[in-house]
């Protein structure tokens, strides 16, 4: 029993050291990132013939409230040549008809579908020559991955970008990613964007006008969480080419390689992590030099769930997807053939993400047990917990500092204080709930419950009205 306690303590120490190492890498990169975000001439680039064309794929399932605003936002990006392909995934609401009405679309007679990935039946493709870069694919319901595959099949350009229908891209987001892609077009196979929480921001004309933190607590915690995960984590991971996920909300991919690995995997959540793992596997086993990059200056604003029910659903889904992906790719675990992925990323994910809740719960129980049996002093328990809290807090503060060095999106001083306060509050309750949700997700997996769960949307207008009255 004592051995277990020691293992738990070493586990916690190791995980924290790893976290700090990754954040250290982020800090080493942040100077370069800040400079390139500031001094690159995106304006000139955004009109250049030399920038590769991109197909934006927007899977939409029951998005009638927000889809119009999002399509308008996506059609006004600063980018030389691109198309917007909205894929209506057999919505049961009026998603398709509001789109047809707003953009006066008509069904195309002989649409050319060149791709060959298997998808659900495509019912029709809609277009209006007045909006030459907008296409709507209407298909039978088949899930998000299936919609993306249908979009890939229809897309005309060599790069594809997947975008959630509840997200708003900044006007420069795509050109910033393309700039990164053009630095190394031979090797870059995927680039992830920085996802931020739009709750609380003032949104006008399909763009975030004024940035501020959410006023409700659920989105507020998520804001901190995203900041930590994206700035503190992914910058570091991308530096050693060990990124295991490109957020489904906003990522850019080489179409030829996505097709080479068979497109997105359907039937299970976590398709965004899955495609990246597949790309890693493919490139490594074919011995092609490659890079999965992260572009923190390309920002996508997303609506965070603001009720317990929805956020718990989302997190259970993530937990489920993560477990599924890890089980599917268990062959990579500590497999030297897969280099950084096999030796660091996958073991890290299995031990510190997937199994994290179990170590935490049992470790805590063990420690409590020792104290109860008088095998150790309660002071030691307290010190241990305090250290744990401090290291976690330091990581959050580190992310806030990264943000302040490179981006400074949050202009108000009060927002800064609020972030620091909630970084601490996160450890009372929210953190524990995260552990619980992940366990529940695993239970769902074992029970073979495979639904996407409820995800309700709020219109951007309402969101922005509450923001402007505040």
């Amino acid at each position, binding site marked *: 029993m004592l051995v277990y306690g020691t293992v738990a303590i070493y586990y916690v120490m190791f995980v924290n050291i790893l976290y700090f190492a990754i954040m250290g890498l982020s800090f080493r990169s942040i100077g370069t990132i800040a400079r390139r975000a500031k001094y690159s001439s995106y304006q*000139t680039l955004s*009109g250049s013939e030399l920038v590769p064309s991109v197909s934006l794929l927007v899977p939409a399932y029951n998005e009638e409230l927000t889809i119009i605003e999002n399509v*308008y936002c996506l*059609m*006004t990006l600063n980018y*030389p040549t691109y198309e917007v392909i909205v894929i209506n995934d057999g919505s049961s609401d009026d998603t398709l008809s509001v789109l047809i009405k707003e953009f006066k679309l008509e069904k195309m007679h002989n649409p050319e579908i060149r791709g060959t990935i298997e998808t659900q039946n495509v019912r029709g493709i809609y277009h209006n020559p007045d909006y030459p870069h907008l296409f709507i694919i209407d298909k039978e319901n088949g899930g998000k991955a299936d919609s993306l595959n249908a979009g890939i099949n229809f897309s005309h350009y060599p790069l594809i970008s997947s975008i959630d229908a509840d997200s708003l891209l900044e006007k420069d987001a795509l050109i910033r990613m393309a700039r990164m892609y053009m630095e190394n077009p031979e090797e870059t196979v995927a680039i992830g964007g920085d996802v931020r929480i739009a709750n609380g921001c003032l949104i006008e004309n399909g763009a975030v006008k004024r940035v501020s933190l959410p006023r409700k607590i659920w989105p507020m915690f998520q804001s901190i969480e995203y900041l930590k995960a994206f700035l503190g984590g992914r910058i570091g991971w991308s530096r050693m080419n060990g990124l295991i996920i490109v957020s489904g909300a906003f990522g850019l991919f080489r179409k030829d390689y996505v097709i080479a690995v068979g497109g997105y995997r359907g039937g299970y959540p976590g398709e965004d992590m899955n495609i990246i793992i597949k790309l890693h596997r493919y490139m490594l086993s074919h011995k092609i030099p490659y890079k999965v990059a992260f572009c923190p200056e390309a920002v996508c604003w997303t609506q965070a769930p603001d009720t317990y029910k929805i956020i718990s659903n989302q997190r259970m889904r993530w937990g489920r997807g993560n477990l599924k992906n890890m089980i599917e790719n268990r062959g990579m675990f500590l497999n030297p053939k897969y280099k950084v992925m096999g030796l660091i990323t996958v073991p890290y994910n299995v031990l510190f993400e997937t199994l994290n809740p179990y170590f935490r719960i049992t470790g805590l129980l063990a420690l409590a047990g020792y104290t109860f049996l008088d095998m150790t002093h309660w002071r030691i328990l307290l010190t241990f917990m305090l250290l744990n809290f401090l290291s976690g807090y330091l990581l959050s503060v580190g992310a806030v500092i990264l943000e302040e060095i490179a981006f400074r999106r949050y202009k108000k001083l009060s927002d800064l204080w609020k972030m620091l306060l909630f970084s601490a509050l996160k450890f009372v309750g929210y953190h524990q709930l995260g552990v619980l949700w992940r366990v529940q997700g695993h239970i769902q997996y074992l029970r073979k419950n495979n639904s996407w769960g409820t995800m309700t949307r709020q219109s951007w207008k309402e969101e922005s009205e509450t923001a402007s009255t505040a």
Partner: protein
Amino acid sequence: MPESLTLERKQQEGLYHNLEERLNKTFPELCGVMFLYCPGPPQLESLVSEFLRQETGSDIEVLKDASTSTLAVLLPGSTLNQAHYQALLLKRHLEETVPEADPRITLTVFPGQVDPTPGVLKQMAESARLGPSADIHIFTKEEAASEPGRILIVDNDDTIREFLTIRLNMQGYETLEALDGTSALELIEKWEPDLVLTELNLYGIDGLPFINQIQKLPVENTPKIVVLTEQRVERTISQCFQHGVDDYITKPFSPVELDARIHRCFQ
């Protein structure tokens, strides 16, 4: 500020449209038109109409542009000579009766050298109010031809907008600014510019959809469109020309070239 400006303009416009209609429909054969600007006397309107009624013995009409307090006087049936004579009498009368009066008058007859378009009528009113000389001014064709154009500048970049505004104003164009596609469309409908000078990358609505929308607006004369943009992709340029754009200039641009191209649009 642009909002209130537009509103004021709209009221004015109403008067000149009204005048145009009356001149074309009610008095199509011959009608002298006199614009009088004379600040000071409170009952100028009645003063003028009484005096002129006595003098001419015919049915004259006096209208007032409330925003600039300029009077428009219609003299049905008068030739240019008669109108000029009445103007001389009216001027002397005002100078005698009202202390320190400084009446400024611009006049012409329709049909004559110029057509009574709202633009011409407004220009006459402005020449009465702002003209340098105290002499009675007869409005001629040459003046009407030099009517400045109205240009709407649409760009998200403050520096570009400021530069263009100053430069175009110096050349006598009237300008307004819009930051994004949506507000530009509203302004075009309200203000009816002769030319829209626009960037292609805009918030709200942009690119080809924006250009299509401009052409579909319910305005009398669809404005000419000159694109001034970063966008240098040839396909987009050719698509723009296909959709009826009058000129396409890429940034960074030469101001001299821009002047020349805009000037050509007004010929």
